[in-house]
C-alpha cells in the first residue's frame, strides 16, 4: 500500500471520524456480519479425474443448475474428491486451477483452416473440414501406400502421413484411434510416451516382464527408505508425493539426488547433487558398494533372479564395448548376449554362484570399476552423500526393511535412458525390494493417460497389450508372427504368460476386422501394416525434414513445443502439405506458420502447409477412463457441454473415418481392404460411445465357449463380456481390443467406475476402480513371500500361501493354485520366471548398464573408456549430428524440467497457473552468475548449437558448481513451459535447445543433458 503522508492523514481523519460518529451513537442500522453464502449448496456434483499427470487425482466438479433441461450446465468450481484413495481431496496447483483450463480463453470453439501461405485462421464448417481432410488423406494414401514390399510381402504401409496421439485422451479415444490409424496403414505414429517414458517400458519389461510402475502411489508410504532420483515428484507429481511425505512422517528417510536442489529436496533428509547425465556411474557405484559390503538379500537373489544363470561363452565387455559390435552399422549383434542352454532348452545355472560365467560373477566384475572414488570423480557428487545413499539402500537388504525409488524423466531422457532405469531395477532385485509393499521401481508417468496409451499400443511398432506390430522381415506371415512372438519357457514349471500370445493376438484381430477376420484369411493378418523400421518421432521428423512426409494428424499433442530442436521442427512442418490438429486449446504446433517475432521468426507467405484446427472436448465434457501411473483404470463423467462446436475425439475420428471409407467405396483406391473390412459395429457409426468402446477393450465371447472339464456346461455364452483374459481363445471365438484390460467391463458392469475405497491392508484398495492386470495392485507380489510362500516381512504381509491357494489384501500376481513346491517363479511374464540382473538380448545397448557420456559432454571424454565416449548404439541422423555442439563453444550443461505450477505446455493457457508462475526463467548457480556478471532477475540469453532462448535469471544457491574429472562443471536449469499461445507472458520454446537424438532403445530424446552457453543481455 502506497500512501503519502498527507493521504494517510486524510484516511486517518476519515477513519477517526467514522469511528467517533459511531461512538456518538450514529450506528448503522444493521452491521451485516454474516459469512458469504456457500455457493455450492445445490450445484450438481460430478466425479472426474484430473487430466494432467498420472497420479490420477479424483475431482469433484460442480456445475450450474441441477441438470434441468432448461439450464445450460457450466462448470463453476472444481475441487478434490476426498473419497479418492490416492488424492484424498488434494489437488496440486495445476489441478486446483482446472476451472480456468475449462474456461480458458484459448479454448478452440470452431473448426478452422489456415490456407496455404495465409497468415490467418478462417472459420469453416465441420462438413467442409472433414471433407477436405478426407480428400487429403485419400490422395496421399493412394499415391504413397506400399501394398507389397519388394519381397512380395503384403505390408499395407503408409509412411507419408504421420499421426500423433493424445496421452491425455481416454482409453476409448485411444483405442478408436488405433483402429482408425492402423486400418489406413499408418506406422509413423507415437503418443507422448515416445518423448517421455519410452525407456521405462524397455527397462522394466526387460528386467521384470512388464514395463509399468510396480507399486501404487499409496504404497509408497510403506517404505522405510525413499530415494528420489531422476525425478522430482514434489513438482511433477505433488499429490503422489503426499505418500512419500507420509512415509517420512512414519519414520522413513527421504533422500533426493538431482542436479539441482528442487522442491522435493526442500523436504528431504538429505540432498545429493549430481552432474546431469552421470546417473549410471552413481547407480553402478551403488551395485559395487552393495556387493563389496554384502548388503544383498541373498535368499531373494538366489531364488528370484538370474544371478545363477550361466552366460554364453562369447559374451564379453572390453574397452567400453560389449561383444558383437558392428562398427559399420553402429549396432550390436546380440547373439552372444544370452544364457547357456541345455538340450531341453532350459538355461543352465549354478545355484552356488561359483561358476565364472554365472551372471553374478560377470556383474560383480563389471561394476568393480565403479568405486566410490570413480563415482565422486565422474558425477561430482560428494562422497559422503553418495555413501549415505548406499547405506540407506543397503539397510533395505534386510527382510523387514524396504526401500523404494521414485523416478521419472530425469532418467528416461538420455541416450542411456533405459539403462539408467535398468541399473536401479538391478539394485532393487539385489535388495529384494521388488514385489514388496513399500518397494518396487516406481516410474512416475507423465500424462494422465500416458500409461493407457502405452497399454493401447499407440507407438510406432506396437499393438494393444504390449503385442508388437508385425515386422515385414521377421513376421511376413501370421504363422511366423505367432512362432516368433510366443516365447518358450526357459526353466521347467514356469508360467511363462506370454505363451498365451496367440489368444491375445487373434482376439485383437477379431476386434479389428470382426466377421471379416476368419481362420482362412489368418484373421485378417495381412491387413495390419508391417513396419520396416521404427517410425518414432525423431525418425518421422527427419523424414519430414527431407521432404518424405506430406501429412500429419496431431491429436492432443503439441510437438513443436515438446520435440527437441524446435527450429528444425518448424522447418520440417513447413514442408508438409497438410496438417490436422485436434485439440481443446490453441497450440504452437497449429500456429507454427505464424510470425511471433523473436519467438517464431517465420514468413507465413513462404509456408504452403494447409492447417486444419479442429476443436475437441476436454476432460470435463466427456465420459471415459484413463489409466494412472499405478495402472488403475478410472472412469470419469461428463459435467458440461463443450464450448462452441467442439466435439469429442471419438466423434472426430469416426467422422474422418466414415468420410475416408466413403471415398474408397465410391472411388476405389489402393489397398482398400483394411479400410473397407474394418469392423465398425457402433450403434451410431458417426459417434461410437465410450461405453461401447470400453466394452470392446474388455472383450466378449463371439460364440458359446464350452467348459473343457464338463461338456454339458459353458464357460461363457455368446455375446457375454469376458470376465478376464484367461478366457480368451485363439480360434476366433473371442474378441478383445486390449487383452490386459480384460476384466475392466465384465458382465457385472463397469469395474472402472467402482468406488469402494476400503483399505484391504497396507493401504491397498482393490475395490477402487480397476487395475490391469486382473486388478493386481502391486505386481510381482509373489516375490513378497519367501520361496515357501511366507511373507518375507510379517508386517508387510500382502499375500501368502494358505496351503491350497494364494490370497491376501492384493490379487496374487501368480497362478492362484501353484504351490510353492511347484518351482514356479514370481516373474510370470519372463520365460525363465525370474528377474533379470543380466538383460540378455532384450536391450540394444547392452545386458549390463554402462556409463556413456551424453552426446554433448562437458568432459569431451569418458574417463572409463576414452575410446568409447558416448553410447555406441546411438542412432543419430546426419542433419542432427551436424547440429551437435562442443564444450569450447557451449561450456555448460543444460537440463530441462517442469515446475510444479505448470503442466507441460497446457497451463500457460490457464490464468490461475499463469499467475502463479508467469514468466520464463532459467536457474543459474551463484558461482556461474558471478563469473558472468549476472544478477538475479536479469535477462539472459541461453544458447545451444541449435538456437537460443531469452529468459529471466533466477540466481540461486540451489544449483552448485561441481568438480568433475578435474574441472568445474556448471549446470543451467531450463524450465520448459513457455510459448506464444499463452495467457502468461510470451516466451521462447525451451526445446529449441536440446538435440534431436534419443535413447538407444526407444529414441526418447536427450532433453536432460546437453551443452549450452549463457550470456547476460546488456541493456535489457
Amino acid at each position: 500500500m502506497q500512501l503519502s503522508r498527507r493521504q494517510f492523514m486524510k484516511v486517518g481523519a476519515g477513519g477517526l471520524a467514522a469511528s467517533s460518529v459511531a461512538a456518538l451513537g450514529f450506528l448503522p442500522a444493521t452491521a451485516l456480519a454474516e459469512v458469504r453464502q456457500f455457493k455450492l449448496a445445490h450445484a450438481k456434483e460430478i466425479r472426474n479425474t484430473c487430466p494432467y499427470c498420472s497420479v490420477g487425482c479424483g475431482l469433484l466438479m460442480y456445475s450450474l443448475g441441477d441438470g434441468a433441461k432448461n439450464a445450460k450446465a457450466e462448470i463453476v468450481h472444481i475441487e478434490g474428491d476426498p473419497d479418492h484413495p490416492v488424492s484424498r481431496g488434494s489437488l496440486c496447483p495445476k489441478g486446483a486451477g482446472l476451472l480456468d483450463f475449462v474456461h480458458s480463453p484459448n479454448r478452440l470453439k470452431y473448426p478452422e483452416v489456415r490456407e496455404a501461405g495465409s497468415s490467418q485462421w478462417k472459420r469453416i464448417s465441420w462438413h467442409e473440414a472433414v471433407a477436405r481432410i478426407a480428400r487429403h488423406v485419400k490422395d496421399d494414401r493412394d499415391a504413397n501406400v506400399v501394398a507389397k514390399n519388394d519381397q512380395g510381402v503384403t505390408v499395407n504401409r503408409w509412411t507419408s502421413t504421420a499421426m500423433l496421439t493424445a496421452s491425455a485422451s481416454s482409453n476409448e479415444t485411444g483405442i478408436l484411434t488405433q483402429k482408425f490409424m492402423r486400418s489406413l496403414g499408418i506406422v509413423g505414429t507415437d503418443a507422448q510416451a515416445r518423448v517421455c517414458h519410452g525407456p521405462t517400458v524397455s527397462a522394466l519389461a526387460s528386467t521384470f516382464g512388464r514395463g509399468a510402475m510396480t507399486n501404487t502411489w499409496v504404497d509408497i508410504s510403506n517404505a522405510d527408505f525413499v530415494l528420489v532420483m531422476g525425478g522430482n515428484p514434489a513438482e511433477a507429481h505433488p499429490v503422489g508425493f503426499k505418500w512419500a511425505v507420509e512415509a517420512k512422517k512414519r519414520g522413513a528417510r527421504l533422500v533426493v539426488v538431482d542436479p539441482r536442489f528442487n522442491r522435493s529436496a526442500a523436504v528431504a533428509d538429505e540432498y545429493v547433487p549430481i552432474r546431469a547425465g552421470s546417473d549410471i556411474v552413481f547407480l553402478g557405484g551403488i551395485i559395487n558398494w552393495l556387493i563389496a559390503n554384502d548388503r544383498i538379500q541373498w535368499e531373494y537373489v538366489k531364488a528370484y533372479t538370474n544371478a545363477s544363470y550361466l552366460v554364453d561363452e562369447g559374451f564379453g565387455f572390453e574397452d567400453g564395448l560389449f561383444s558383437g559390435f558392428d562398427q559399420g552399422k553402429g549396432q550390436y549383434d546380440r547373439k552372444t548376449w544370452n544364457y547357456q542352454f541345455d538340450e531341453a532348452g532350459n538355461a543352465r545355472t549354478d545355484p552356488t554362484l561359483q561358476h565364472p560365467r554365472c551372471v553374478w560373477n560377470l556383474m560383480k566384475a563389471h561394476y568393480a570399476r565403479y568405486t566410490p572414488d570413480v563415482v565422486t570423480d565422474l558425477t561430482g557428487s560428494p562422497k559422503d552423500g553418495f555413501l549415505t545413499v548406499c547405506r540407506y539402500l543397503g539397510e533395505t537388504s534386510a527382510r523387514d526393511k524396504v526401500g523404494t525409488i521414485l523416478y521419472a524423466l530425469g532418467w528416461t531422457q538420455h541416450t542411456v535412458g533405459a539403462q539408467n532405469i535398468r541399473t536401479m531395477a538391478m539394485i532393487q532385485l539385489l535388495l529384494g525390494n521388488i514385489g514388496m509393499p513399500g518397494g518396487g521401481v516406481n516410474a512416475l508417468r507423465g500424462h494422465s493417460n500416458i500409461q493407457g496409451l502405452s497399454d493401447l499400443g499407440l507407438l510406432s511398432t506396437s499393438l494393444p497389450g504390449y503385442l508388437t506390430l508385425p515386422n515385414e522381415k521377421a513376421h511376413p506371415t501370421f504363422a511366423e508372427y505367432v512362432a516368433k512372438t510366443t516365447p518358450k519357457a526357459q526353466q521347467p514349471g514356469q508360467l511363462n504368460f506370454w505363451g498365451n500370445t496367440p489368444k491375445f493376438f487373434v482376439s485383437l484381430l477379431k476386434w479389428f476386422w470382426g466377421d471379416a477376420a476368419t481362420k482362412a484369411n489368418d484373421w485378417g493378418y495381412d491387413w495390419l501394416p508391417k513396419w520396416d523400421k521404427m517410425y518414432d518421432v525423431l525418425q518421422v521428423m527427419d523424414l519430414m525434414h527431407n521432404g518424405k512426409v506430406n501429412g500429419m494428424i496431431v491429436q492432443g499433442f503439441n510437438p513443436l513445443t515438446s520435440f527437441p530442436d524446435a527450429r528444425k521442427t518448424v522447418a520440417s512442418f513447413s514442408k508438409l502439405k497438410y496438417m490436422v490438429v485436434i485439440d481443446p486449446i490453441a497450440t504452437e504446433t497449429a500456429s507454427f506458420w505464424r510470425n511471433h517475432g523473436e519467438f517464431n521468426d517465420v514468413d507465413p507467405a513462404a509456408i504452403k502447409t494447409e492447417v486444419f484446427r479442429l476443436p475437441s472436448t476436454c476432460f470435463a465434457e466427456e465420459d471415459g477412463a484413463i489409466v494412472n501411473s499405478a495402472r488403475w483404470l478410472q472412469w470419469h463423467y461428463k459435467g458440461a457441454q463443450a464450448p462452441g462446436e467442439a466435439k469429442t475425439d471419438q466423434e472426430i475420428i469416426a467422422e474422418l473415418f466414415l468420410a475416408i471409407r466413403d471415398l474408397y467405396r465410391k472411388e476405389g483406391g489402393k489397398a482398400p481392404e483394411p479400410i473397407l473390412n474394418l469392423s465398425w459395429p457402433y450403434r451410431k457409426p458417426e459417434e461410437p460411445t465410450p461405453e461401447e468402446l470400453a466394452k470392446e477393450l474388455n472383450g466378449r465371447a463371439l460364440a458359446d465357449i464350452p467348459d473343457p472339464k464338463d461338456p454339458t456346461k459353458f464357460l461363457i455364452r455368446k455375446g457375454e463380456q469376458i470376465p478376464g483374459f484367461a478366457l480368451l481363445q485363439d480360434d476366433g471365438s473371442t474378441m478383445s481390443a486390449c487383452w490386459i484390460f480384460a476384466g475392466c467391463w465384465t458382465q457385472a458392469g463397469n469395474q472402472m467406475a467402482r468406488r469402494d475405497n476400503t483399505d484391504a491392508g497396507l493401504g491397498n484398495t482393490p475395490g477402487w476402480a480397476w487395475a490391469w492386470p486382473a486388478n493386481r495392485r502391486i505386481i510381482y507380489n509373489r516375490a513378497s513371500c519367501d520361496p515357501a510362500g511366507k511373507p518375507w516381512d510379517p508386517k508387510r504381509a500382502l499375500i501368502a500361501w494358505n496351503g491350497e491357494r494364494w490370497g491376501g489384501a492384493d490379487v496374487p500376481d501368480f497362478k492362484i493354485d501353484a504351490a510353492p513346491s511347484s518351482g514356479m517363479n514370481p516373474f510370470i511374464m519372463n520365460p525363465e520366471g525370474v528377474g533379470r540382473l543380466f538383460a540378455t538380448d532384450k536391450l540394444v545397448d547392452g545386458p549390463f548398464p554402462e556409463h556413456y557420456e551424453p552426446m554433448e559432454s562437458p568432459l569431451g571424454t569418458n574417463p572409463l573408456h576414452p575410446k568409447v565416449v558416448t553410447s555406441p548404439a546411438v542412432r543419430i541422423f546426419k542433419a542432427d549430428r551436424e547440429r551437435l555442439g562442443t564444450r569450447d563453444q557451449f561450456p555448460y550443461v543444460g537440463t530441462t524440467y517442469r515446475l510444479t505450477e505448470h503442466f507441460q505446455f497446457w497451463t500457460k493457457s490457464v490464468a490461475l497457473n499463469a499467475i502463479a508462475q508467469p514468466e520464463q526463467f532459467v536457474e543459474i548457480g551463484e558461482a556461474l552468475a558471478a563469473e558472468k556478471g549476472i544478477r538475479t532477475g536479469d535477462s539472459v540469453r541461453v544458447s545451444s548449437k541449435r538456437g537460443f532462448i531469452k529468459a529471466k535469471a533466477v540466481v540461486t544457491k540451489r544449483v552448485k558448481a561441481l568438480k568433475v574429472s578435474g574441472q568445474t562443471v556448471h549446470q543451467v536449469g531450463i524450465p520448459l513451459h513457455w510459448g506464444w499461445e499463452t495467457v502468461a507472458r510470451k516466451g521462447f520454446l525451451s526445446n529449441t535447445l536440446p538435440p534431436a537424438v534419443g535413447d538407444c532403445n526407444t529414441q526418447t530424446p536427450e532433453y536432460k543433458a546437453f551443452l549450452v552457453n549463457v550470456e547476460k543481455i546488456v541493456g535489457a
Partner: protein
Amino acid sequence: MTLQSLDIKQRSASPTTAPEARNPTEIAQLIDVSVCIGCKACQVACSEWNELRADVGTCVGVYDNPTDLSSQAWTVMRFAEVEENGKLEWLIRKDGCMHCTEPGCLKACPSPGAIVQFKNGIVDFHQENCIGCGYCVSGCPFNVPRLSPKDGKAYKCNMCSDRVAVGLEPACVKTCPTGAIQFGSKEDMKEVAAARVADLKSRGYRNAGLYDPPGVGGTHTMYVLHHADTPEQYSGLPADPAISTAVGLWKGPLKPLATVGLAAAGLFGFFHYTTVGPNRADGDTHETHEEDRS
C-alpha cells in the same frame, strides 16, 4: 460442539457484546513448514474458491509469484534460501492472515462491522462495511491486509468462513498435497504440532517448535517451524509480534478524547468555513510530488 463460525465474538467499532450461550470450538489452521514443498496449490485453490485473479506478473528472480499479498492474492508462498555450515535449506512459508486471538486489525478498525471475529477464531473482513481507511493495515503485526486499487476496500484471507460455516475445511487446507496445511480444533492442531516437532527433533532439528505467538493472544494460523528460535529467517516472520502501541492507545484510552476532539473539530470546522472560507489544496499537490521523487 462445532467448528462452524456461527457466533460473533467481536465486531469492529461496535460496543455490542458477544452472545455467550453457545460455545463453538476454537479452530486452527496448522502450517507445517517442514513438509511444505512450496507448490502453491494453496494459493491457486484460494484464488479459485474466492474468485480472485491477480494480474499476471513477472519473474523477479525468485519463485515468489504473485510477489506479494494483494486484494487479489490472499495467500502467497515466500521462498528463502538459507545456507548454514554448508547445509542448504529452502524455507518456504505460506503467508497470509494469522487469525490472531487479539486481532490488531479489528482493534484498529474504525468502521462498525467491517471486521468481525467469530467465536471459532476466524477473523473476517466485511467489505460492505469497509470505508477503506487502511487502519487494519497498520494495525496488523503481520502486514497482511491489503487495500484493493479497484474499490479501496481492505481484503485478506477469511479462512474460507463460507466453507467452514457449512462444515468444510478451507480450500487451501483441502488441496494441500503433502498435508503441510491441516485444519481442526486448535487443541487437536496443537497435538498434531507436538508430534511433528518431536519427529523433527529426532531428525536433528533441535530448535523445532510451534509458532503460536502470545503477543497477539495466540493465532488461529499456526506454524510448525524447524527453527522456531529464529522465525525471521522464514521470510521475515516476526519473532514477537504484538499490536502496536499506537493502535493500543488509539482504540484504548485515547478513544473518548478523540470523540470529544471530533465534536470540537466539527464545530471549529463549521465556524472556520462560515467565517474564513475553504482551505486551498495547492500545498497538498506540491507535497505529493516531493514524495514521489524521494
